[in-house]
């Protein structure tokens, strides 16, 4: 048979495998899961898809037109003060990175203690969460921020007075407009007791505060908290990033000392995947809105701005500060520093249907790292002292990285970083961060409406 005859008589080749961009394998698996289980997917963590982020920004180091500072010698200060507007006792922190609110309940008592130890070692603050204040956490946190949440679990005036600052939580980046969630396997006897709930139920926290409904009410609520605590404590207002320009303005009007702004990359212990992935905006897009709002009110730096949601390293911190934030806050990254998703636990993650680097079933309570669990045996795996050391090490690295970038830009304080020090790699990032596209003077949308 000739080559031509062979070609003509051969069976047609196997069609090439072509994955649909619309119905990709992940989408197909999720449809199959939903058809099997009949309920939405609940998981921990923040958004997993690629969205414009700090990686899309670059610093313009000093050269002929700017004067750098010596990397290892010249001072580059990192101290910050939070709550200078009304509080008699503002917080003085040594570094511009804080630990975000995460509840006892979502996290083990050991994890909460470790976060407190790590933060204290680095002269920064940690934050309670939707479950009240534990003695372990208070005892090991030099500076502790006490959250006032819609659920008011464990809320009491004694802890309010024991706190160093108060954070009224309106929303969080992972789920702006949604309440907390803690599944039954994590409602242990102690967690149930602190929250006044029956043990083992799937707990759904309220998404609205029970005794105020809008900014005018919030103003009175904040005044109440100040009256109860003799106007000593700084009062933060935390919002998930959505209509940030207006939310910030209203929080300032309501009397906030500090705004905490959480972007959609911000983690959660348990929320519907559809909520995490489809509600809220990236922190990159939110910070310039918040800063513009504060500037319009003449309150930038008067009311401090803490930002969170996907902060991973000193570059992220430096870029957040350059955009106008006063501090950055970490949650997910702090858990990773504690040991979450550690490669040594890969086999155990695989036994749970996951793998190191992928584990996000923080809602499940079976965390082999002993962090997102209330199982005594698993929780005992986490040594709070060692965990605290790891968190402190990680914070130290972040601060050194932040200082490195600030010195390269010629800044003697990390707060002196400014938008003019940066350019964007993508058109999207340039538009959101309001800095020019690299190599151009183009800021898409500049001068347009917010």
């Amino acid at each position: 048979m000739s080559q031509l005859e062979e070609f003509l008589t051969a069976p047609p080749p196997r069609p090439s495998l072509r994955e649909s961009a619309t119905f990709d394998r992940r989408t197909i698996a999720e449809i199959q899961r939903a058809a099997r289980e009949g309920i939405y997917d609940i998981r921990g963590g923040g958004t997993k898809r690629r969205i414009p982020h700090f990686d899309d920004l670059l610093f313009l180091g000093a050269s002929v037109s700017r004067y750098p500072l010596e990397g290892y010698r010249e001072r580059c200060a990192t101290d910050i003060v939070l709550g200078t507007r009304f509080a008699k006792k503002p917080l003085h922190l040594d570094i511009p990175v804080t630990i975000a609110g995460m509840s006892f309940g979502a996290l083990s008592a050991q994890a909460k203690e470790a976060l407190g130890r790590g933060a204290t070692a680095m002269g920064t603050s940690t934050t309670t969460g939707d479950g009240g204040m534990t003695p372990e956490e208070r005892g090991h946190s030099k500076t502790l921020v006490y959250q006032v949440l819609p659920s008011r679990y464990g809320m009491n005036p004694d802890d309010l007075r024991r706190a160093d600052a108060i954070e009224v939580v309106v929303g969080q980046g992972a789920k702006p407009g949604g309440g907390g969630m803690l599944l039954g396997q994590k409602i242990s006897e102690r967690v149930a007791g602190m929250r006044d709930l029956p043990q083992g139920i799937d707990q759904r926290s309220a998404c609205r505060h029970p005794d105020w409904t809008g900014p005018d009410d919030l103003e009175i609520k904040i005044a109440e908290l100040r009256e109860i605590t003799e106007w000593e404590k700084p009062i933060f207002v935390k919002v998930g990033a959505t209509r940030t320009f207006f939310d910030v303005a209203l929080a300032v009007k309501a009397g906030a000392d500090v705004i905490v702004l959480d972007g959609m990359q911000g983690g959660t212990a348990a929320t519907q995947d559809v909520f995490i992935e489809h509600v809220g905006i990236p922190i990159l897009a939110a910070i310039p809105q918040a800063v513009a709002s504060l500037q319009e009110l003449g309150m930038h730096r008067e009311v401090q701005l803490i930002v969170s949601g996907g902060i991973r390293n000193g570059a992220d911190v430096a870029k957040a500060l350059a955009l106008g934030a006063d501090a950055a806050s970490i949650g997910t990254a702090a858990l990773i520093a504690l040991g979450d998703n550690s490669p040594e636990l890969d086999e155990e993650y695989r036994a749970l249907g996951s793998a190191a680097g992928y584990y996000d079933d923080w809602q499940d309570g079976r965390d082999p790292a002993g962090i997102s669990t209330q199982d005594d045996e698993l929780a005992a795996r986490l040594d709070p002292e060692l965990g605290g050391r790891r968190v402190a090490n990680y914070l130290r690295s972040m601060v050194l990285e932040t200082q490195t970038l600030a010195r390269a830009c010629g800044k003697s304080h990390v707060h002196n970083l400014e938008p003019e020090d940066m350019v964007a790699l993508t058109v999207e990032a340039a538009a959101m961060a309001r800095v020019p596209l690299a190599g151009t003077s183009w800021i898409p949308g500049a001068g347009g409406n917010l």
Partner: protein
Amino acid sequence: MGAGGGVTLVSDPTTEVVDLAATSLRELNSRLHALTGADGEPQRIVVANPRGRHNIAVGLDVPVEVVVDGHAGYYCAGMNKLADVRIVGNCGPGVAENMMSGSVVVEGNASQSAGATGRGGLLVIRSNAAGRCGISLKGTDVVVQGSIGPMGAFLAQTGRMVVCGDAGDGLGDSIYEARLYVRGSVAGLGADCVEKEMGEQHLAEVRELLERAGVSGVDAADFRRYGSARRLYNFDIDHAGEY
């Protein structure tokens, strides 16, 4: 009832009058926080001319009697601990919010979210309460001599609520283990809230609460009991329509 109408001031060394027409709210609360219950301190503070001011007598932490002689605004007696506060008038939203212990009595009407998230103590409302009375209750006992508005005891976790009049729509929506007693009509029950049998222990509970609240002439046998069906305690796809 109203400003200056409900309290007779007498020359009594154990009573101190703080006049909010001449004293700031900050000074009033600061004075109340400074009390320790020691001998020689006043046992009763009368707040004159409250004029609907917000945040009156918040964060008390001492067994003292406080009489607010008139109408109060938001969060009167908020986070009360140990003190017995009486409001001789109406009050705004969130009266006695997050109360820990002691008692708060409103001689008139209460606005929305009365007793919100309260964890202990007794709240008595002599007239009516608006919507969301007893929202997210965590242990406080609430007795309303009149009626309550919609969404009463929303998300109520523990504690008891006695309503001598009627209850608005959505009573006990998403309720946990709080126990509700209503003498009059209920416009509608919220998600997972059902009527339950009145046993002897429940009759005794209503009698006890009425007595503690100083309510007489009301028969415990006239009340009906409501509480959680516990169908939403754990996610169950077959109950998704209940939400």
